[in-house]
């Protein structure tokens, strides 16, 4: 049922000790079910902190995050069952083969071995990696690693897939394969996708909803079309620069 909220971020504030300002500051967002929700913002805007809180790793200093009706601060175990995470880093073991990596991570999700093997085979075939399954990850190209990184987050069929810059540093072929597969999962399986990226053209093409945050605060949000129209721009990149400015964020 598209439109109903899967995640509700309610006035969330997150402060770190000795930090000059909160990493996330009174942020409220709703991520609708079956949407592809893009969270954009410059470096240091608070995207990674927000993802950590969505995953239940940190509790907000103030405010609440409700996912599928569960409070992340209380029911983080239940939430971890329904989310899949694809970190920005290649979170794989370089000295294990692609297959060994996926087998290990799948078992950590508690998937039965036979079922897991089928899912690994399917995903490797879809992303064109089956013939490379017995190669060590350290021998893979950047694009191949990214594709395995994605599969690792999908094996347990999560309701909410959280992607932190999933296409950074990959060639156009790998990027296209990843985005097309994610679109397929969203349209066919109804998977909700929460995505961050600095590739604004990719975000414009991929996301149904976009929120832009800066210095921990929400600047704007809405459907991709709405954002472009309401800001009198032609692309999301124009909207982004108009809202966040051209000042460096070093």
């Amino acid at each position, binding site marked *: 049922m598209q439109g109903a909220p899967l995640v509700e971020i309610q006035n969330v504030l997150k402060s770190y000790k000795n930090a000059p300002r909160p990493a996330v500051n009174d942020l409220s967002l709703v991520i609708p079910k079956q949407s592809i929700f893009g969270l954009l913002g410059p470096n240091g805007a608070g995207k990674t902190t927000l993802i950590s809180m969505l995953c239940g*790793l940190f509790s907000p200093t103030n405010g609440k995050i409700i996912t599928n009706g569960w409070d992340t601060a209380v029911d983080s*175990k239940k939430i971890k069952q329904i989310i899949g995470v694809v*970190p920005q*880093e290649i*979170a794989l073991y370089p000295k294990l083969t692609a297959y060994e990596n996926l087998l290990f*991570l799948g078992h*950590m*999700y508690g998937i039965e071995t036979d079922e897991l093997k089928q899912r690994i085979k399917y995903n490797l075939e879809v992303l064109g990696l089956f013939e490379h399954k017995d190669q060590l990850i350290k021998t893979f190209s950047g694009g191949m690693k990214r594709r395995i990184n994605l599969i*690792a987050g999908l094996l347990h069929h999560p309701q909410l897939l959280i992607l932190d810059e999933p296409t950074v540093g990959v060639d156009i072929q790998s990027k296209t394969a990843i985005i097309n597969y994610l679109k397929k999962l969203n349209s066919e399986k109804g998977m909700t996708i929460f995505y961050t990226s600095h590739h604004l053209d990719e975000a414009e093409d991929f996301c149904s909803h976009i929120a832009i945050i800066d210095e921990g605060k929400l600047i704007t949000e809405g459907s991709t079309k709405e954002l472009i129209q309401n800001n009198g721009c032609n692309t999301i990149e124009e909207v982004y620069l108009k809202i966040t400015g051209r000042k460096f964020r070093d």
Partner: protein
Amino acid sequence: MKKLLYSLYKEYKVLVRDKAAMGIMFIMPMALVFVVTIIQDTTFKSVNETSVPLLLVDKDHDSLSVQLERALKQTKFFDVQKQDINQEEARELIATGKYLIGIFIPEKSTTRLREKASQRISKLFPAEDTLPSVVDTASLQLKLYFDPITKQSFKVSISGAIGRIVSALEMQSMVDVLKVEMKDLMPSSEEVTLETKPLVSTSEEYATNNESTLVPNSVQHNVPAWTMFAMFFICIPLSGNIIREREDGSAFRLLTMPGSYVFVLAGKITLYLIVSLIQFALMLSVGLYILPLMGLPTLQTGENYFTLFSIALSAGLAATAFGLLVGTIASSQDQAALFGAVFVVLLAALGGVWIPTFVMPEIMKSISSISPLNWGLEAFYGVFLRGVSFSAIWIHLFKLLVFAAACFGGAYYYQVYKRMR
């Protein structure tokens, strides 16, 4: 359980494909135990007073030198080598380290010894019609040379041993002269025999709790010492493994899985505990089978195998927990490697791995008791050298387990209250 097994299998695969870590954990300690045991063997031999190379220069060629040589050989402490050289050449040979000790017996030493004995005995039986003879008050001097590296305590004990031999020879000479005098005084009496054996004797034994008399030697010290070192050195690969997982995002991914990071940590702890037990078995095998092939003594393990296993398990757990703590606190692999290595080397030095605590000054002996490596080493000594049972070494194991619990607790606290906030 299935998650734990898969985690263990993953850690195993990662470890066996990491050649550097395998080298650190298995090759390095074996190389260390080879090299250090061989280097320290001579030192331990000198401590144990066995086969000390001794140069004997005999310019006397009479009964004193013959009897002294025989007596030196009978002690079996000395490997007596005779050379016909002058005093300066003898001194040179000792100075260059070819021999640890040299004894130079001047010409006519036997004759002078007899004369001196005769003079002393004559004083006991002065003839009424003769003037007192002129007594040569300068003592007969045998020259002893020591290699400058010889420790004072060893020098004193060797001088004492040689002094005792010389005293016995002096006594014998005086008895011989006395016999002659007695015969002059009492021509009709039967021949006098005087027993020169010591009236008071001492017996020595090592106070072990079993029937064997194990002597501390380089193998008995170095095998358990470097086993402890190797076990604690796994903190380098273990902390590196934890930090790598954190840096490459794997830890982040695992933390987002339901309950999985606990299994991942349990897998790591189990694997590295197994590694430490394999290290123990390997090092024991080196002491039992490899070192004897190089002319070194065979490791004597005693028969308390349960106690030995308990020590290895406790030490392994302490080492693994320490690695986990270092991996949790350190912010980079470089920092963990540097901190871990320096800390383990320091604990090893304090704990008596390099230099046994029994040769340390008193203050260092007290300080060494704070090192977990010392607790393990003392427990191994208990079984290897003193033949004690579990009840005598449990306190060392208790300390190791408390140390392990403190490290696990510290790692948990840091992870939950510092890193995750």
